[in-house]
């Protein structure tokens, strides 16, 4: 990659959507209103597991003010298939044969008021045959386990369960000779870890408004990470043509992966089509917890061996991940990420995707990786102590570099893990003194970073400003990052570039905002579109000057003649004002199926303070180091790092879905589901390492996923340093820590 000097990349302009957001003017999902709007509500299962004998909606439909009632009978049957399994998705948005978790949607109504909609729900008669719930992977894999889906058979290589099972898949990767590797080890640590289901905790609940015209065209306003996905899933679930649905994304109050699927959107479209009036649906916070997708709980058994010289000789792990009510946990990513930072010759990693009577899991930042890293990074910490080696040094001695064969298969290209480890080791935080009852931990993390499909347009306006149109909802400042990249190519200030997130009919197809892909994939599309615009600008300038385009150079936002004849440089406005004379409007476009989003690595340092009387653990200082390849807008990279840490600390210390023995969620609200708030956290320091990704014009790597991977083990290792207690079960809440302290005494 050439050592290009950037003018706008790496600067920190105010985000284009910032003023509206801080002044409360931005429009989020629940803000839309329309004439004649009906209120849509969902009847949810009071049981974690039950067979539906019958649903009678006649009394609800007869209630004055009710305009539509819907059940699964209104949706066409779907087949199992690869990718997103529509057979399961249709059953998740409206239950059919069974309800599979507390809060599972059973029916939906649209009425003229919230009160009447609620009354209508109470008039829907559902006859349930209540079944015993399966609430953990341990229960689910027992030979005599109650089955969620009698037709389910385990996929994957043997050995695996034969016949009906709750285990949807067995997965395995590995290489080398694990037994030989352990025989070569001087120290071996074998431990078992558990984590609980946790929610992304986005502040904005799922919300949608849908209107269907007399021509059968539906328009949908919703908060989503992927409005093209909403269109696609909804069309398939409802048996409509994709072209019959237009989706307009609102601003989004957090997603973190949890808004990459559909819950309410198909229901709102269905109800609006039945009622002939627009319908708005907004989840309550309790509904968000009970019925949208968390990251599932896990049980992980792990054994790792090292030599006294600090070489990892072997790793053997079994990862059991809760999928929730339908198959599709993130266990494979967990398996693949677990030792991705390390060059280990002998590895056997197997994973199991397991159904339980909890909401179907959804993506949550680096899906599957934080739980796996909690186990591996905790064991590495223990091994470092056993052999008396600095924990960063142990990681450095095993770190993957360019050319290393990743545990999950391919040889890595340029990666920045070593640089992150060195930056962490050299950071003042790593050497700072600790106070009483304080401890320090470190841990590393990895994420692949996604690619997928992106489209973008760059158009020029007559005054020389530019508009960047993309189709990726902005959940982390991507709009401004895209504008910066367009500004860099066009050579004009970022403030003169307006970035727009367009609806499904206004820009080419875009996959979801997720997997840390937008700044890389859509950013590359924007750069290509802007370069197309620059090519046209040079052509137009050449036409105006009457010279060959080869003699026109684009520099600092101006066309310069290079043919030896002095010409007054032409800015964008000079050219666009005369666009009609030179060929018409100037528009650049680019679409691609992205590839080459380089993986990212992170190293975190965390200090905690333990109150030995109460078991309360407080994070006192935290530093996150991560390779961003190239930070387009450093503030938003730092924000991603800080946000990931905050969520990871919550996962480590407090967050957990709590269920009673019947499978009813006990803490479906922010008072009882304890996420960190600002006063719980210190200022989170960040260090951006830049090892450019050779596959991006500027070197960008995705950054949003990786920062949630290390905090679980970072905090656990810090707590061990403070107390001598090794916590292998999350969350490390005060009662759990106190119990661990007391059991040691």
């Amino acid at each position: 990659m050439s050592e290009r000097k950037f003018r706008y990349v790496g600067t920190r302009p105010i985000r284009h959507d910032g003023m509206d957001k801080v002044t409360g003017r931005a429009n989020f999902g629940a803000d839309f209103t329309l004439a004649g709007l009906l209120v849509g509500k969902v009847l949810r299962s009071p049981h974690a597991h039950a067979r539906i004998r019958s649903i009678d909606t006649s009394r609800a439909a007869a209630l004055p003010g009710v305009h539509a009632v819907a059940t699964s009978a209104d949706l066409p049957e779907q087949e199992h298939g690869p990718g997103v399994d529509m057979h399961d998705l249709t059953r998740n948005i409206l239950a059919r044969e069974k309800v599979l978790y507390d809060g599972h949607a059973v029916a939906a109504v649209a009425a003229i008021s919230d009160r009447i909609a609620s009354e209508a729900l109470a008039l829907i008669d559902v006859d349930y045959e209540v079944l015993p719930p399966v609430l953990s992977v341990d229960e689910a894999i027992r030979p005599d386990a109650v089955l969620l889906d009698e037709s389910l058979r385990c996929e994957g290589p043997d050995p695996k369960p034969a016949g009906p099972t709750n285990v949807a898949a067995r997965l395995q990767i590995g290489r080398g000779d694990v037994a030989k590797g352990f025989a070569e080890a001087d120290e071996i640590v074998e431990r078992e870890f558990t984590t609980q289901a946790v929610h992304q905790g986005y502040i904005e609940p799922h919300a949608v408004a849908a209107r269907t015209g007399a021509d059968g065209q539906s328009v949908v306003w919703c908060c989503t990470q992927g409005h093209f996905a909403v269109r696609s899933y909804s069309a398939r679930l409802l048996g409509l043509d994709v072209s019959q649905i237009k989706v307009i994304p609102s601003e989004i109050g957090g997603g973190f992966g949890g808004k990459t699927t559909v819950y309410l959107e198909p229901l709102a479209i269905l109800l609006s089509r039945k009622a002939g009036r627009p319908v708005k649906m907004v989840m309550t916070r309790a509904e968000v917890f009970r019925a949208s997708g968390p990251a599932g709980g896990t049980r992980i058994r792990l054994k790792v061996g090292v030599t006294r010289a600090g070489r990892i000789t072997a790793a053997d792990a079994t990862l059991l991940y809760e999928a929730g009510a339908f198959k599709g946990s993130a266990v494979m990513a967990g398996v693949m990420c677990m030792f991705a930072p390390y060059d280990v010759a002998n590895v056997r990693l197997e994973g199991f995707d397991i159904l339980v009577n909890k909401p179907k899991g959804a993506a949550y930042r680096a899906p599957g990786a934080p739980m796996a890293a909690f186990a591996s990074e905790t064991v590495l910490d223990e091994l470092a102590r056993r052999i008396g080696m600095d924990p960063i040094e142990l990681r450095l001695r095993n770190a993957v570099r360019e050319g290393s064969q990743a545990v999950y298969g391919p040889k890595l290209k340029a990666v920045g893990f070593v640089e992150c480890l060195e930056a962490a080791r050299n950071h003042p935080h790593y050497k700072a003194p600790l106070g009483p009852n304080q401890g320090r931990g470190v841990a590393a993390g990895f994420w692949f970073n996604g690619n997928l499909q992106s489209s973008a347009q760059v158009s020029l306006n007559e005054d020389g400003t530019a508009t960047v149109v993309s189709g990726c909802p902005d959940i982390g400042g991507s709009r401004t990052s895209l504008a910066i990249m367009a500004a860099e190519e066009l050579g004009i200030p970022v403030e003169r570039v307006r970035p727009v997130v367009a609806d499904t009919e206004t820009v080419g197809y875009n996959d979801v905002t997720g997997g840390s892909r937008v700044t890389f994939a859509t950013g590359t599309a924007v750069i290509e579109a802007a370069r197309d615009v620059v090519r046209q600008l040079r052509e137009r300038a050449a036409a105006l000057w009457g010279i060959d385009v080869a003699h026109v150079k684009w520099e600092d936002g101006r066309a310069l003649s290079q043919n030896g004849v002095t010409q007054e440089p032409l800015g964008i406005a000079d050219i666009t004002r005369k666009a009609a004379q030179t060929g018409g409007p100037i528009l650049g476009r680019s679409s691609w199926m992205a590839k080459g989003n380089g993986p990212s690595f992170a190293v975190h340092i965390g200090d905690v303070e333990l109150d030995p009387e109460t078991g309360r653990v407080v994070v006192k200082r935290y530093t996150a180091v991560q390779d961003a390849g190239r930070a387009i807008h450093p503030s938003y990279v730092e924000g991603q790092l800080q946000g990931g840490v905050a969520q990871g600390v919550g996962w480590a210390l407090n967050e957990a879905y709590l269920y009673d023995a019947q499978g009813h969620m006990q803490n479906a609200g922010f008072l009882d589901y304890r996420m960190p708030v600002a006063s719980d956290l210190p200022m989170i320091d960040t260090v951006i390492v830049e090892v450019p990704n050779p596959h991006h014009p500027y070197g960008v790597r995705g950054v949003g996923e990786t920062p949630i991977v290390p905090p679980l083990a970072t905090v656990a290792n810090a707590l061990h340093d403070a107390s001598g207690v090794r916590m292998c079960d999350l969350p490390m809440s005060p009662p759990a820590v106190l119990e661990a302290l007391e059991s040691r005494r």
Partner: protein
Amino acid sequence: MAEVFFSSGLQAHTGGATRATVEASNVRELIDALDQRFPGLGRHLRSRMAVAIDGEIIQEPLLERLGASSEVHFLPPIGGGS
């Protein structure tokens, strides 16, 4: 000739073979050739696999070109929560 590496999960379909050398200009041809050598493997690779070619993970790889000495790894699809 592309060199193909099989993860332990795939080796059940390859009779325990950990790698193979195949003449193919793209991934589709590669899978066809592998299916001839290991009957049934092709269906598995087409339905469930992502591919890493020379270190780069490709999510829709069928028409992806292979170099004269490409290193190919079939990977389980990276998913979760979709």
